[in-house]
């Protein structure tokens, strides 16, 4: 067995896996992690990680105010709203 704790991982990902599917995802995750394990064979001690592949992007603009959205636009897709706010259940006791 591997050390993949599917309950912890799904909690971190804010997913509530139905108990009958935990096994399915757990096995699938193990297979894939085992499959990608070949990377560990490569010596990369002197290699820098690559984040941005073209590495040449210089894209700085003036910080001018642009008005592209109204509050009405922003709230248009909200599942629940109250005036100009997104509505959620009470958070503070």
């Amino acid at each position, binding site marked *: 067995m591997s050390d993949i704790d599917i309950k912890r991982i799904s909690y971190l990902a804010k997913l509530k896996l139905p108990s009958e599917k935990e096994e399915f*995802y757990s096995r699938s995750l193990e297979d894939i992690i085992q499959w990608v394990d070949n990377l560990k064979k490569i010596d990369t001690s002197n*290699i820098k*990680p690559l984040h941005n592949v073209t590495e040449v992007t210089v*894209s700085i603009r003036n910080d001018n105010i642009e008005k592209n959205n109204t509050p009405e636009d922003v709230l248009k897709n909200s*599942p629940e709203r109250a005036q100009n706010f997104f509505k*959620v*259940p009470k958070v503070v006791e």
Partner: protein
Amino acid sequence: MLKRQPISSLVDSLKEKKISVQELFDQFHEVAKENKNNSYNLVLDPEYQKSNIKASQERYSAGTNLPLDGIPLGIKDLFCTKGITTTASSKILSNFIPQYESFVTQQLLNDGAIFIGKNNCDEFAMGSSNETSHFGPVVNPWQNKNSPSEKLVPGGSSGGSAAAVAEGSCVASMGTDTGGSIRQPASLCGLVGLKPTFGSCSRWGIVAFASSLDQAGPITNCVEDAAYILNSISKHDFNDSTSSNYQRDDYIKDIDKKLDHKIKIGIPSDYLKNVTPEITAQIENTKKLLAGHDIEFIDVAFETTDYALSTYYIIAPAEASSNLARYDGIRYGVREGGSNLDDIYLNSRTSGFGDEVTRRILIGTYVLSAGYYDAYYRQAQKVRRLIKDDFQRIFQEVDFILTPTTPNEAFKIGEKLDPIAMYMNDVFTVPTSLAGLPGISLPSGLSSNGLPLGVQIIGNYFEEKKLLQLSNLIEKELSFNE
């Protein structure tokens, strides 16, 4: 019939009043609205496009037509389109109506294009067969001649885009490619699919999957059409911090120009190690087609090919797990009930994402989690540099690299149930994506089952112009030989 005509000749027909913009739209809309291959999540109503069609016709009448004026296009349902439902083929976005237009689709609109509808795709573009869509699989319009009743996948994730062009319901369609999602479906549907250099086309307004890999590009009937669309969409955009500000070429100009100097094309022997003779034959055939030109073919060998898929299946899910954290049921998308905030998050996400998306979020979360970050994610980013360097080493010897696009023809819907078997479909396209290089898939022939196969040409960074010139040459030789 105007189907299969290149954009240039459609524009000529519109200019010469052989057809009206409305008539052209209607021809494609008629096919699209049947949606017999499920290639659309949404087909736009002709009434909705009435004013756009009228404005386009007026420009033709005034002689002020734009480069893509009146051309009916499909748009992958991953591009935000203002006022038009954009779902990413996911339940969680099934009610989402963007209040803004993606950069890429805005450029197409600015150039006069008229949208037919939103093309089905894999959920959040995660898949290689278009089977992970919440709205059901797309059927490849091609049939296996030895088994015509079988329903085949169009490839993915831009499977709806490819099927739509192949069935003749739009002139071309905009797709996105993260690890092969334009090139692979183009290949399985007998079309041209171009993934430009990372940074060519702004990602602004494209539903994000893996931000260091995602790139927009066209799926078209011919190479010249891909050049027309690239001319429209390849521009610098301040809203995407990875958008490149290099000087773009005119990709149409000189596309027919003959090679004025000898070019070298590398063929990676390691790509051809385990492929079927039918796939090898695509490479041999392409070589033969080009025999009359001043082209030297050189055997090359990568050192990192065996690690590319592993690298990709760490980096892409890691970025996806982070990008998809925004879907929480609070500000947009489908909200499920819950007695407290945490329950709303958990219930909305769990019910909103399908199996493959859930799987990739879990992989990504795992490789980014404390204790595993260095061993997996950081290691993958380092190997990614080795892969990039490997390409640059080969590009010191050659101008282009020729590979198969996929290891197989279109397969049956439901055939590949094992995720790793599915991921292997992208073995030839993923390395290019990791390196951020431009790649194009071109139809190269038919399999013994009468299904399309394709070859991929890879160019160096921002060399799309040369890439399209060579592709145009190959396409011409192929049609001459048919």
